Structures are given as structure tokens and as C-alpha cells.
């Protein structure tokens, strides 16, 4: 069994813990933090998938896009809440 696959499955199960916080979490801030953490985990899972399929240079590009859009999305959500005055 591939060690990358093992680690990927472990991270995948951790995503569900974050998903619980994102769905039931009290308040908007918990949800935003949970979504951001899920994005970070998805990034690492993508890199591990690159190792599994032996196409790392391809999956690095995808994970970088994921990191950038995750960062911008979190900031945009925070800005929206700040402008709306819900904090």
C-alpha cells in the first residue's frame, strides 16, 4: 500500500471534522475558519495525489491556484462581513 495514499486518506477523514464545523458551527467566523482549513487540507491532498499519479509538476500548479483562491476568498468574505457590520 502506498504511503501517500494512506496519508491522503487520513487527511480526507480530517476534512469531515472541519466540514462538521462548517455546517453546524455557531456563527459565521467559525464557518469561515473551517472553510479556510478545508482549503488548506485539499491543497495538501492534491499534492499527495500528484505523488500517487507521478505527475507532481502538474498538481503543483493546481494546488497553487487553490491556495491563491482560498486566500482571496477568505479575505473577500471577511471584507463583506466587515462592510455589512455583522461582526
Amino acid at each position, binding site marked *: 500500500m502506498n504511503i501517500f495514499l494512506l496519508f491522503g486518506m487520513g487527511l480526507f477523514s480530517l476534512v469531515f471534522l472541519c466540514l462538521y464545523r462548517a455546517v453546524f458551527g455557531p456563527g459565521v467566523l467559525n464557518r469561515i475558519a473551517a472553510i479556510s482549513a478545508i482549503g488548506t487540507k485539499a491543497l495538501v491532498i492534491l499534492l499527495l495525489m500528484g505523488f500517487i499519479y507521478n505527475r507532481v*509538476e502538474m498538481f503543483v500548479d493546481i494546488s497553487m491556484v487553490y491556495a491563491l483562491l482560498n486566500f482571496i476568498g477568505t479575505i473577500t468574505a471577511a471584507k463583506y462581513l466587515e462592510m455589512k457590520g455583522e461582526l
Partner: protein
Amino acid sequence: MISITDDIIIRAVARILIPFIQVYALYVIMHGHHSPGGGFQGGVILGASFILYLITHGLEEAKEKMSELKAGLLSTFGILLYSGIGLLCLIMGRNYLDYGGLSTILKVVPAQARSLGILGIEIGVGITVMAIMFSVFFDISTGGILPEDEEDLGVNR
């Protein structure tokens, strides 16, 4: 209206990150035939970089880099590039967007002409997607009312 953020960390990080995001977006557009990505994905990243600038530096400064007029012109220019290449193929006696016909203009073998043709198409798509992304975000964030219009309409916000 989005004003400049008073958080110094976000402003400094965005300031340093934006040029790299833009280079990365152009890399995704230009290397669409070697690695994942292409015109649409690169255009989305390029638009996201402008949106990040708008969020962190406010509407006033963002209008100097990318205004609504510029976005509209760029979106139509992208479509012009796309359809222009397609029509050029049609004029050369092939089907619409059949890039093999460009080989006589570019003076290369048809395979390379196909590669260059699809690069031009992707640049056009990227420009259009970037401009439309920015334009949509601009319209939603301002509610369609620009600050200079507010005085005319007497809107208080």
C-alpha cells in the same frame, strides 16, 4: 463603496502578492497546452488579483489600475481577438476556428499553426474572462452606483 483597509498586515501582504499572482495567471494562460489550465482559468486568476487589489486598496486606487471603461473595452477586445482568428481561418478557406488554415499566413507547418492559433484563442478568452470577472465584482460591490453618481442621485450611504 469599498474603502482602503486599515489593517496593515493584509495591505502589505496583498501588495507583495499581487504581482506574483498576475505572473502566475499569465503563466497559466500561456502554458495551457503543456500543463493544466488555459484561457478561462488564467483569466479567473488574473481577475482575482484585481479583485484583491480592489478589496485591500479601496475603490479610489483600484480605479487607476482598472476602471469599468477599461474592463468593458478589454472584454470586447478579447472577443474580437477570438472571433478575428476564427474569421481569419474562414477567409483562408477552412472551417471557422480551423487553425490549420493559418499556416500560409504564419509561414509554418500546419501543426505549429494549430498550436499558435489556440494560444491566440486562449489569450482572447483570458482577457475577456478577466475583464468580465472584474466588472461583475465591481458592479456588485458598488451596487451599480459609482461615487461620482451619488452626488447626482442624492444617495446617502
